[in-house]
């Protein structure tokens, strides 16, 4: 319920997710690295939908664009879209078991990756191999852990 506590934890988890996104990893592992920021955003959207709005997600996306050197506004658009879908379905999703939620998360990540693929292709980016799609699957596999971890953090802070 504490708004101050909530925003502190919200920003801290996002900060950690951002660091995970740009972690220097070996060649093989870095193509497995999922979009942690999006996963964390999905969690907070489902957990406290009244606080994480579309504008919020869009602004976060701008930060991610700057962080990873993408076209300005690309992740803004994508995060806003995914956030909107989550807001639309959050009532239903809350009652789903984690596995079923993971399926929904899979489609969210797929939507995001398709958008990235589309926008990168418009810009004429070369070198997109099938490895480009791997983060969608690893992200889905990570969802139960993210869900459990962030839920623990949320309950610890008595948020929502």
């Amino acid at each position, binding site marked *: 319920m504490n708004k101050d506590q909530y925003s502190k934890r919200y920003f801290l988890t996002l*900060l950690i997710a*951002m*660091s995970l996104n*740009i*972690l*220097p*990893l070996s060649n093989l592992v*870095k*193509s497995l*690295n999922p979009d942690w920021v999006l996963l964390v955003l999905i969690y907070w959207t489902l957990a406290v939908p009244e606080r994480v709005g579309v504008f919020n997600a869009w602004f976060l996306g*701008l*930060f991610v*664009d*700057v*962080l*990873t*050197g*993408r076209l*300005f506004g690309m992740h803004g658009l994508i995060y806003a879209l995914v956030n909107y879908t989550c807001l639309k379905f959050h009532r239903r999703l809350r009652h789903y078991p984690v596995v079923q939620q993971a399926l929904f998360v899979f489609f969210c990540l797929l939507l995001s990756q398709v958008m990235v693929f589309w926008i990168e292709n418009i810009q*004429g*980016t*070369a*070198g*997109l*191999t099938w*490895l*480009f799609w791997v983060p969608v699957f690893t992200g889905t596999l990570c969802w139960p852990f993210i869900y459990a971890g962030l839920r623990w953090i949320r309950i610890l802070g008595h948020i929502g």
Partner: protein
Amino acid sequence: MDNTRSVLSVLIYPVQRLVSIPVELIEQVNDTVVSYTALKKENITLKERQLINSIKLLKLESLENENIRLRGLLENSFKLDEQVLVAELLSVNLVPYEHVMVVNKGSRFGVHEKQSVLDANGIVGQVIRSLPLSSEVMLITDPNHAIPVQINRNGLRTIAIGSGQLDRLNLPFLPNNADIQPGDLLVSSGLGGAFPQGYPVAVVDKVTPQPNKPFANIYATPKAKLDRIREILVVWSDSTPIPLLSPEVETETAANE
């Protein structure tokens, strides 16, 4: 739009810094915990190399002057005057499908887009975006990068395209009968205007003619140690034309008249 990006990048810079701290710490520990004998050995080899280099530099100065004089005769004179800035890489990884690195010097130090970036062995890449505190450098091995090169042995010009692997460049536009062989050094030709002329880029390591196709399959290995560089040089190359006759000569002729 660029201003907004600059502002956000300053806010986000601590995250990039934070991520690269562990790697930097490990490097520092490695640097600190070196035995006395190893340091001594390194010192001796460095001194030797320094001696050899300074002798080479002695000759270079006279050769450069001669070059400028000869170019003056040919009426296409350019002074190759380059200023460099040492920048350090931040250990961050932007996206897996691009070879872009972040360095810790930005527009605050005067770094701007399209500047070429070198290391001690050859060309590394070019600056694609300069932000206030950092800038993004695209490596020559990025699949979206191409660099005009020339074979040092015979001056044959072509384009080297990044392959997406850190140890390989492709040369897709040379015919099967082109005079190129493994071991040839490729230097930048300076034709695109982005890179200064004459810096080593790569060494050809495999030439496979394809009888049924117009172009041969040629691979080269970059000279720069792209996978283990820590420090890079950002280059300002201004190719300002120099007068055909040196100023002293001109004043002399004026005095004679």
